[in-house]
């Protein structure tokens, strides 16, 4: 699932579309681009038959890079499935020798890690998805 979301988030980020919805058997994935951001800032992951209220409960936020640089994951790196307690560092993006922290901006569970250590990223590129 995470791999698919990662691929779709990338496709949406590269496309000019504001919204992307994929239905495949029991699963429906919808990614939305935030009004002022290139990257999808939130998406909903829910089985097709799941009631709308419950889908909304399982909302996930995308944490995107706000600089151009190289991703430096923490040691040990934040992993998919990991629970986050409060606002904490998820990784750094290094720009011209400066390590810019990437924060979780609140508690939640990491549902996707879109990047690997040492990967170059552009402004607005999705780094993590956090289920709130």
């Amino acid at each position, binding site marked *: 699932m995470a791999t698919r979301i990662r691929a779709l988030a990338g496709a949406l980020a590269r496309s000019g579309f504001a919204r992307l919805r994929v239905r495949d058997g029991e699963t429906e994935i919808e990614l939305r681009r935030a009004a002022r951001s290139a990257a999808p800032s939130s998406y909903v992951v829910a089985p097709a038959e799941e009631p709308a209220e419950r889908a909304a409960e399982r909302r996930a936020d995308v944490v995107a890079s706000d600089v*151009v*640089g190289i991703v430096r994951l923490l040691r040990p790196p934040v992993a998919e499935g990991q629970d986050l307690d409060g606002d904490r560092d998820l990784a750094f993006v290094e*720009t011209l020798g*400066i390590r810019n922290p990437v924060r979780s901006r609140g508690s939640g569970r990491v549902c996707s890690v879109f990047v690997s250590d040492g990967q170059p990223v552009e402004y607005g590129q999705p780094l993590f998805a956090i289920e709130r």
Partner: protein
Amino acid sequence: MFKKVLIANRGEIALRINRACHELGITTVAIFSEADRQSLHVRHADEAFCVGPGPVIRSYLNIPNIISAALISGCDAIHPGYGFLAENARFAEIAADHGLTFIGPKPSVINAMGDKATAKRLMEQAGVPITPGSGIVADVDEARRVCEQIGYPVLLKATAGGGGKGMRAVSSVEELPTAYATAQAEAEASFKDGRMYVEKLIVNPRHIEVQVLADEHGGVVHLGERDCSVQKPSHQKLIEEAPAPELDAAIRDRLHEIATTATRAVGYTNAGTLEFLVAGDAVYFMEMNTRIQVEHPVSELIYGVDLVKEQIRIAAGEPLGFSQDDLHPHGHAIEVRVNAEDPHNNFAPAAGTLTVVVFPGGPGIRVDTHVYGGAVVPPFYDSMLAKIIAVGRTRESAILRMERALGETRIEGVKTTVEFCAELLRDEEFRRGGIGVGWLPAYLARKTAAVS
């Protein structure tokens, strides 16, 4: 020669640089803001990096993100184009500190020429005639004292200024406080530098500028002059041509001579432009632009030299492949700026989606543009959509060709300057040639008076 160049710009000039790079076998890296994701310059480049959101301060002026993109992608040079960071010496220094060649003159020269007050002092020392005026004034009170000395009318100018921004004409002491405050605020907003100076306003001069190229081995040539006297009341150029029509041969030679002498005197390298005011037999140096200019194609077309490729070759350390004796202009070229703005409403810029875009073609026509049918014009940037350039054996044939080309042009979705420029080309005074910078404002004033 460079292997990979980052193009730190957007719009038509980013495409222009991309074309020059590709013809030289150089791989290109584009940068873009979120508002420009669908822009042609992103598609034409070999790689592209989003460097920030729409507002320029966070994207096209975002030095850390731009340098970072160049380093990550393995570039060896940066071409800044015009506007944005093109005349930012600090940016050139930071690039050099990171092992990137800045395609332009040395930072010290950018600083000296970019600071218009310093530039005038240096030029005066090199024997170049300048307009009477001041150094940097501390505040409006000092400006008032200077104005009294040199006499009204005066021009208030931002030392970091360009493109008409941060500049105001002041005809009396009553107008000074407001003009000073607005010009300074504009300069702060546009260039992050609100330092101002004052100079005598020469009434209705011609704006004639000389294109120079200088390599890093002492080679200096000029590529003749351009007449950019058709300027909006905001001093932004609208129609440019080369050579300057109805210009006395002695004055023309003098301008070329001053330009190359001054270029040598300040140790200039790469492409540059010296702007002059010409009033009768008098010639005054105004400023030197240390970048490629919007209107460079008119010189390219009559001299057969690709100025952007020359910029890249010079920055790579190559000597000029020609001397002054090899350069001979042929014919006449004229450029019309197609802007997304309303000429009947103070050239108010327009943003929106271009529903129909048809550009002209055929013999002697060149179109430099980044837009296409369906393209969105974001509200954040310069309103220029395209430059249409016509070349002919004579001025008359170039103008007729341009009229034909503008007739073929169709842009719908936003108001543009196309029809208005066609109207200007039909004007008798323009046809005679040799008009001053006051011509277009007077033309507009007459039209407004005729309507009311």
